[in-house]
């Protein structure tokens, strides 16, 4: 633990997640078994930003819950630095879809509680560190506010701070910017990119927004229609530090086209099989007719 706690140098304090041949099923309300993730394998390499994209309802969140340890796999394994993941832990911290800051705690308390309940530092140390971190996240003036008094963007930054104060080996983000307005979302993407380029904490990020995915990712894992398998892995070789101007580069357009084609193929196949994903298929066709 000591080796980790002071590791803020790029990549040093981060871990590597290996998901191999993982399958997760559940029973629906009718008692029918339903496969959510099937024989899914991928690697989230140390110090890289891995983005999972896939058609809606394909099992992305299930996969994240598996990595976080909230659910167990029926088959296959999830390993963090070679050790099987057995349950939730602060070495893999999740930033949830909607904010999960405790509404009954102030921003500072939210950030301080992780280290506090584990008792690894003294309270004044923790308060000082949490205060400094919030200052750095532009929340210094809001540390004694309750989450409802913060804007959506501030809440997400507060949640990032709550995760990062624990020096997690891996940061898990399940559509963390969902529900933010377009402007805030873009600012948060830029913010997260800068933060990642500074810390290089291994990050696994789920999104259904292709632009967001490519802008953030070092590696794009395109998932198949449900049950989730890996359809393809795309290396995003856009240079870092990332800038929004890169979104208009030819290489970016290529990557986007490649990813969209894969997603379209999955959506179309899902539509053939179950009638699901008709919206995606239709939208894609409309777009390409317009082109």
């Amino acid at each position, binding site marked *: 633990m000591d080796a980790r706690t002071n590791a803020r140098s790029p990549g040093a304090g981060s871990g590597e997640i290996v998901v191999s041949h993982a399958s997760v099923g559940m029973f629906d309300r009718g008692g029918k078994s339903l496969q959510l993730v099937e024989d899914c394998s991928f690697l989230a390499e140390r110090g890289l930003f891995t983005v999972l994209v896939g058609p809606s309802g394909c099992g992305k969140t299930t996969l994240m819950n598996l990595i976080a340890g909230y659910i167990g796999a029926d088959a296959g394994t999830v390993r963090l630095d070679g050790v099987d993941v057995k349950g939730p832990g602060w070495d893999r911290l999740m930033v949830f879809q909607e904010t999960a800051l405790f509404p009954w705690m102030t921003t500072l308390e939210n950030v301080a509680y992780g280290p506090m*309940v584990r008792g690894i530092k003294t309270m004044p140390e923790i308060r000082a560190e949490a205060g400094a971190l919030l200052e750095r996240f532009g929340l210094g003036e809001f540390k004694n506010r309750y989450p409802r008094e913060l804007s959506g963007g501030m809440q997400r930054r507060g949640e990032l701070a709550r995760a990062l104060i624990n020096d997690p080996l891996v940061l898990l983000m399940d559509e963390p910017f969902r529900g933010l307005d377009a402007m805030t979302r873009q600012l948060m993407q830029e913010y997260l990119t800068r933060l990642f380029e500074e810390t290089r904490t291994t990050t696994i990020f789920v999104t259904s927004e292709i632009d967001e995915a490519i802008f953030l990712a070092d590696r794009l894992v395109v998932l198949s229609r449900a049950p989730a398998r890996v359809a393809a892995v795309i290396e995003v070789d856009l240079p870092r530090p990332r800038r929004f101007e890169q979104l208009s580069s030819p290489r970016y357009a290529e990557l986007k086209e490649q990813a969209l084609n894969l997603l379209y193929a999955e959506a179309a196949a899902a539509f053939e099989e179950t009638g699901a994903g008709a919206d995606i298929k239709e939208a894609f066709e409309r777009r390409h007719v317009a082109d």
Partner: protein
Amino acid sequence: MAAPTSLPGPGSGPAGARPAARWIAFFQAMLGISIFFLSWFLLVDVFAVWRFAQLPKLSVSLREMFSPDPTFGVSVFTKEYYDHLQASAGRVVFAFLIAVSAGVVIGILSGWNRWFRAVCQPLLELARPIPVLAWIPLVILVMPSRESAVIALTFLAAFFITILNTMLGVRSIDEVYFRAAQSLGFSRWAILRHVVIPGALPFIFVGLQIAMAACWFSLVASEIVSGTAGLGYKVWEAYYYVQFETMVIMILTLGICGYISSAIIRRLGAYLMRWRGKTLGGVA
């Protein structure tokens, strides 16, 4: 993401509202109450409309209530008034505190533990709809004294309501908070202390308000049947001895007691749940 320049401070809402808004709320409340008393005055005292003529007059009742030398021996200047008040208030506070302590513990257990809930919930759902009035004979049979029977009945009324609301409160907490707490390394005790209890608090306090009202209700019912003193007992006794003005005094006192006890719970709730920024409704 421009930071809002002026955020509502903690404790905004009615408790910390501008003075003008508080005065307006006060006058609105007074308006409603005045309309009630004015109707009483007009229907009974002034016009003596049909059946309303049977009721005690407002003017006479109020004169009796604040008379140093009341016709029927009970006014706010007599010791007997405070004896009844103390007897009733004491029972309610005692029964309510026991019901809440036991009810919150059982409610949290059954909200949090699936096994416990599976055992408790059907029984609760069965016991809850039985009116307290129906329990009276059984409770009198089992309790050693009339006093303890009244307290037991008052307790029962609050007990089931508190359990149920607490359980619902725990069940209402979003799963993400439990997950976040688990990931951050909270122990079970820390989850109880920092997730379950604060998360269930809004429901618990709604339950406490309902429970308090139920306490006063079943207190009066059981005092009428089995009491030897108390506001409810006195209401019935005054009726029996045709001291209708005394009856009115006791009824008004019950209303005021109910209002004050409810206001205390609301205030406490608003204080404990400053993070919500809205109160549970109601004036005080």
